[in-house]
């Protein structure tokens, strides 16, 4: 079971709700992914279009736990005010905290992130910070009260997979008891499986599913990959070797002679 701030989940796939071709394709992807947690945002509401009201009705149908984000916030102050609005809007203490440093990479601003995490934790929020693989930032976030960390694999929407795998392994080893969720940058189910094989607790996906030719089918593919990777981690992977080692027993090989070159 995946445990996040005391809540337990069977699925280890968190799903973003943006960029789907239609509300119906989002709904189908949510269903076929088996996800129990969906991410949402908040945006300016027009008095005429009232777009958000219809979207909320759709989200409620899913019956999933809702994880609001602070996407697009550039400063700790903006992120804090956005989190406060999200708490009231979605009636949850959970917040996927994003403070963005740069438009090209959408890299987290780790300084603003740590600052906002501390303020929000003190206000009773349960913060899930979108961070990098940086170990010192992770330590600061944990010290600020974060009981979950969500490092990126690669820049948001880039589909590059685990571009700094060794650092992600280090982070996993350094925080054995903190739930770690890979958030952003995964492109293929094999990327998700790789993250899970490293012992990551879950993955958060959006673009790779939403922009697939068939989002519902891709959601299913990712769900299976996440499950396969988790099973592999629990089963215990063998270590890579430089040289071959016969899998078939050597003893009793027919025609075997001592000193016979193989």
């Amino acid at each position, binding site marked *: 079971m995946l445990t996040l701030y005391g809540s337990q989940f069977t699925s280890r796939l968190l799903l973003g709700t943006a960029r789907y071709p239609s509300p119906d394709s989002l709904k189908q992807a949510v269903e076929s992914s088996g996800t129990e947690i969906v991410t*949402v945002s908040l945006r*300016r509401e027009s008095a005429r279009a009232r777009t*958000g009201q219809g*979207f909320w009705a759709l989200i409620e149908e899913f019956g999933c736990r809702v994880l609001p984000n602070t996407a697009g916030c550039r400063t700790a102050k903006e992120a804090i005010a956005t989190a406060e609005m999200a708490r*009231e*809007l979605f009636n949850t203490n959970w917040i996927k905290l994003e403070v963005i440093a740069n438009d090209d990479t959408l890299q987290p601003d780790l300084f603003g992130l740590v600052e906002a995490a501390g303020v929000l934790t003190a206000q009773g929020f349960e913060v899930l910070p979108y961070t990098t693989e940086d170990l010192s930032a992770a330590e600061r976030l944990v010290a600020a009260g974060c009981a979950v960390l969500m490092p990126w694999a690669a820049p948001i929407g880039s589909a590059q997979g685990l571009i700094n795998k060794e650092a992600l392994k280090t982070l996993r080893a350094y925080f054995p008891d903190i739930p770690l969720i890979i958030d952003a940058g995964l492109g293929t189910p094999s990327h998700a499986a790789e993250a899970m094989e490293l012992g990551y607790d879950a993955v958060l996906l959006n673009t790779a599913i939403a922009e697939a030719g068939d989002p519902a089918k891709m959601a299913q593919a990712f769900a299976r990959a996440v499950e396969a990777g988790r099973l592999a981690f629990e089963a215990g992977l063998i270590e890579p070797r430089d040289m071959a080692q016969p899998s078939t027993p050597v003893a009793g090989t027919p025609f075997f002679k001592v000193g016979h070159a193989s």
Partner: protein
Amino acid sequence: MQILLNGELHATDAQNLYELCTKLGFADARVATAVNGSFIAAAARGATKLTEADEVEIVAPRQGG
């Protein structure tokens, strides 16, 4: 009075944030609000007076990653 509503100039005679929300048809809508960069809880909208050039944000649930 002119305020900035969701980043756009907006003329209103609403005295407070609650009145503004009501005039916009958001009385029972699922929205959250901020004035001049600070969150204003739903219960505090009536006590939040609006003045010229205030920057008001009214937000609602939306797709997100």
